[in-house]
């Protein structure tokens, strides 16, 4: 049988005659066999597919830890009572949850169980010959016939053979696999094409397994890490030195990271000018880096959005940028107790940015500064500052001073971008009606209580391109599986094209000499195997072309004889 092997409940399979017949009791093996049959049936695959679609939806409604960790924290704050319930249902990790995994693993098991026997069967079918010509072609839906007169002096049986020879040649030329079934005087050819349909089907499903395996295995060898580099600073690709966070897969060799260093020379960005549509919109981001690799000359590299930098198998992405004002704190004696470029986190599209300075030593008390940086400062009606434009047109730094316990002495890990004000006293700020410290680049102000001074340095003095330095946040990835995922995805697409658009069909041509021996009755018929909207046209075309060339040849013969 050259039909593809299909699950018992496939629409093109013969109905299972055993249904409804009392069956003998099943043993353990019988039940396992029954279960396997159920799992690999079309119906189960279909239900699993629909379940998969439904199961994926919650992940788009509830924030996911993988895609939006801040959203999850926010959700927890907003719904403290509901959070543990949803968390217990793994609704914040839908795509790695037990239930989601169960569905897709069962689906793939079902798929594999279906595909393996089909592949074996298809392999044999590819080597088999087209099936015997049915006895009554006229019973088929797509059917045509004609009667051709036999030329004078020609044997009708020989004419029938000749007609089928011609059909065989034509079908073969059209890409059909052909087999002759001549019986007695009746000649016939059976032709089949479209094996590629089932091949494509199997390739598609196999490629999906390939995608899943590539994702799974590749994930173990993949790492992603984040880092922040301020203009003039460097990043060293090593766990201890460079990364602010690092997520390695299970099998990543942490000591074997490629030893390169990146220095941020300059960060470029352009903003849409005031008064134009999209005013202040940022674009053309470019992190200009110097790349140092051991034993090689330093070279330049650029990271842009959509254009990651490829380096030693890593891909380096530009994820964000911001301002890093250089802040110096001196004690009452004028000794420097703190001097750093402090990365401020952008809070708005106009780059109003928030940053924190922690001075643990050197002052009478531990001091924390919560700062807002406005690249183009403007006063709102309320008296509060805002930034009107993202470029450095009117840079202003405001600082609220807190004194007390920074909470870092006991070794607890603290977020460098946030100040825990519990245990600290606020000394300046709107909320306590003491003016915040306001600084323009190059200015210095006194800290309260005569503790010392704070300076907003003009970075151009240190050779920076602008008065305030910029920083970039980079994401460094290695994904070993990605190329395989892509290859399998393209293979799946190719398989899908063949599986959906190559028609699998059988055609038959049968020539029977009539009793008188003066004419030959020729029948054409076709049978679609699966979706084939063009089967009727195929049979009609075959009948027409074959008929024309047959009578055309006859006409040519006649002329010759004459």
């Amino acid at each position, binding site marked *: 049988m050259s039909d593809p092997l299909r699950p018992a*409940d*496939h*629409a*093109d*399979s013969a*109905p299972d005659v055993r249904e409804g017949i009392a069956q003998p009791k099943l043993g353990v093996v019988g039940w396992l066999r029954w279960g396997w049959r159920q799992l690999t049936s*079309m*119906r189960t*695959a*279909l239900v699993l*597919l*629909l379940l*998969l*679609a439904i199961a*994926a*939806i919650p*992940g*788009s*409604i509830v*924030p*996911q830890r*993988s*895609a*939006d960790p801040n*959203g999850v924290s926010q959700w927890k704050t907003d719904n403290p009572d509901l959070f543990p319930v949803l968390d217990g249902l793994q609704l914040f990790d*839908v*795509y790695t949850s037990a239930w989601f995994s169960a569905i897709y693993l069962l689906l793939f098991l079902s798929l594999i169980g279906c595909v393996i026997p089909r592949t074996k069967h298809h392999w044999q079918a590819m080597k088999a010959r087209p099936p015997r010509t049915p006895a009554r072609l006229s019973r088929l839906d797509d059917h045509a016939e004609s009667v051709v007169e036999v030329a004078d002096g020609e044997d009708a049986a020989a004419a029938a053979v000749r007609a089928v020879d011609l059909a065989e040649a034509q079908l073969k030329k059209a890409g059909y696999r052909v087999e002759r079934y001549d019986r007695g005087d009746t000649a016939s050819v059976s032709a089949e094409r479209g094996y590629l349909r089932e091949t494509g089907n199997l390739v598609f499903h196999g490629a999906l397994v390939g995608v899943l395996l590539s*994702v799974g295995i590749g994930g173990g060898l993949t790492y*992603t890490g984040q880092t922040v580099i301020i203009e003039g600073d460097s990043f060293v690709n090593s766990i201890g030195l460079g990364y602010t966070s690092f997520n390695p897969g299970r099998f990543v060799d942490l000591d074997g990271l490629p030893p390169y260093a990146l220095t941020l020379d300059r960060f470029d960005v352009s903003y*849409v000018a005031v008064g134009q*549509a*999209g005013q202040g*919109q*940022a*674009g*053309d*981001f470019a992190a200009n880096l110097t790349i140092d690799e051991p034993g090689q000359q330093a070279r330049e590299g650029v990271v*842009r*959005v*959509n*254009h*990651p930098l490829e380096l030693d198998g890593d*891909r380096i*992405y530009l*994820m964000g940028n911001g301002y890093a004002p250089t802040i110096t704190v001196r004690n009452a004696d004028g000794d420097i107790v703190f001097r750093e470029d402090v990365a401020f986190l952008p809070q708005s599209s106009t780059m109003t940015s928030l940053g924190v300075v922690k001075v643990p030593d050197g002052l009478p008390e531990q001091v924390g500064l919560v700062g807002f940086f406005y690249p183009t400062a403007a006063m709102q009606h309320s008296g509060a500052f805002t930034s009107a434009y993202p470029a450095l047109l009117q840079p202003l730094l405001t600082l609220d001073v807190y004194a007390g316990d920074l909470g870092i002495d006991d070794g607890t890990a603290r977020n460098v971008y946030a100040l825990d004000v519990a245990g600290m006293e606020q000394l300046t700020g709107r909320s306590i009606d003491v003016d915040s410290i306001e600084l323009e680049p190059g200015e210095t102000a006194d800290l309260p209580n005569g503790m010392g001074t704070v300076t907003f340095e003009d970075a151009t003095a240190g050779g920076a391109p602008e008065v305030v330095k910029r920083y970039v946040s980079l*994401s460094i*990835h290695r*994904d070993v599986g*990605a190329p395989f*995922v*892509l290859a399998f*995805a393209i293979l*799946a*697409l190719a398989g*899908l094209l063949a599986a*959906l*658009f190559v028609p699998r069909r059988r055609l038959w041509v049968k020539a029977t000499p009539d009793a008188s021996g003066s004419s030959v009755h020729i029948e054409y018929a076709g049978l679609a195997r*699966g*979706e084939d*909207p063009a089967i009727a046209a195929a049979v009609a075309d075959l009948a027409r072309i074959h008929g024309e060339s047959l009578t055309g040849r006859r006409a040519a013969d006649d002329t010759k004889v004459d």
Partner: protein
Amino acid sequence: MPDTGLSLEDVSFLLVWTAVAIYAAAFIAYTIDLARRGDLAVKAKDAAEQVAAQRVLVGAGGGAIDAVRAEEQAALADLEAPIAARKRYLWARIGTSLTVLGFLFHLGGDVLRGVAAGRVPWANNYEFALTGTLLIVAVYLVVLFRYDLRFLGAFITGLVAAFLGGAAIAFHVDVTPLADPLKSVWLVIHVFVASLATAFLALAFALSVLQLLQDRRERAALEAAEGRQTRGGLRFLRTIPSAEALESLAYRFAIIGFIFWTFTLIAGAIWANDAWGRYWGFDTKEVWTFVIWVLYAGYIHARATRGWRGSRSAWLSIVGFSAVLFNFVIVNMFFKGLHAYSGLS
């Protein structure tokens, strides 16, 4: 050129509104056509019955379903008839002419928008709607050369007029420069192919809806043959092919849409790998693209599963396209995610 005070962008917007008005007129014409088709079909049937009655005393009984089958067979022949041999439905012709006219204005509006922006006109929600609906009409008009699908005209023009008008009101934004992540060749490919997929899936959806209606009519005819009292279906259904024929046509459009959708998914992953540093991250839009893909994969399986062929698979096609619309409207407007390019704030 004299300064009329109108920018290219304004002209584009005017053209779009004109197109909406013309599509609305086409919708009315097509609707009248459907109403008249029902009428004509009833009259034709009455005439045929009278002739038959005069010839012989017709034997009573199970003729209802045979009559339905005969109508459907004739309708199938009409569906596949070459252009010259098509029935000359006056109002359908008016509808199609208006649709072509509307399409030209629509195309003009879309192209001018692109010229005004200096880039492809599909970079925010308004532009997605503009180009997506343009492709729906384009696919419909191209398919008309092959099949006489004018009975879908009312649906297509109605959908497009509603969507385009709605987008012009709710989504319209001025041209702004592209955000950095959108500056990619994949914007041209990924978004265009997604819109093309949507166009084919829309046609499949419309055919699936008709399939269900026709299926109901067929069952009603069967019940009538058994002597039970039934309600008749919509009368224009007499002029369209059988549920089975509609199903196989819907399937053909759906698989083309599915192929394009698969490509959209892969192209999106390649782009995401360049722009966001991963090819797949279950971003909301990615989730919905995946859900839609799985739904249509389910539909294709259903078509091949005994007991699911027919109405059940038609429902899957309807659910699938509803998800496509949800993905475009609701997800773009209300869901948080990386695909935040609607241009709306």
